[in-house]
């Protein structure tokens, strides 16, 4: 599966970013853009996504993560994620507050499951499920 990078507006801008649209849980009408971030260990989303997807965080383990130089509280919940036609279940940290515009797809819950090729020269991202 090949996806174009996402362009940002002029200010703040910079080059297009490797972002994938992810369906979270069963909220298939909502595509949540997530930065494919090989420097992130965890897959993290803003807390409002869990609300809108009907994901219950009651009793979920929590941890404080360092995001963007400050601490955020994350509820860790096993969650079904879907990109294109491929779905997988992985632990997602739903964070409040959340400082960014998009979620993060990190090592534990995304790169573990996909072979990822960054084609930055032509602003494209290729992903393929890990065989087996």
């Amino acid at each position, binding site marked *: 599966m090949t996806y174009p990078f996402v362009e940002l507006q002029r200010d703040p801008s910079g080059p297009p970013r490797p972002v994938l*649209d992810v369906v979270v849980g069963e909220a298939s009408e909502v595509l949540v853009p997530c930065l494919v971030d090989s420097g992130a260990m965890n897959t993290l989303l803003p807390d409002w996504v869990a609300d809108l997807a009907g994901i219950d965080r009651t009793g979920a383990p929590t941890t404080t993560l360092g995001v963007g130089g400050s601490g955020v509280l994350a509820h860790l919940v096993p969650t079904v994620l879907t990109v294109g036609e491929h779905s997988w279940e992985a632990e997602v940290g739903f964070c409040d507050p959340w400082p960014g515009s998009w979620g993060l797809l990190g090592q534990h819950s995304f790169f573990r499951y996909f072979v990822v090729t960054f084609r930055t020269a032509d602003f494209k991202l290729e992903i393929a499920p890990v065989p087996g």
Partner: protein
Amino acid sequence: MADWPHGGAEAAALEPYKGRYVAQDGLEVLYDSDSPYDVVRWLRKNGLRARVWKVPATAEDAGSFLTW
């Protein structure tokens, strides 16, 4: 921008919505609000599917956050 995926058209479409939550379908912004809940409520009311996000207003919004 000429070599960008949409030749800068996506960037231009997002420019008026900095800091707003939007429902984005391709290069078109369908709806905007200061609340993601409002955006999704609108999507569901109209039976639509779209990317829902907050258009970055600052460089930090659009950052790659080191996490641990």
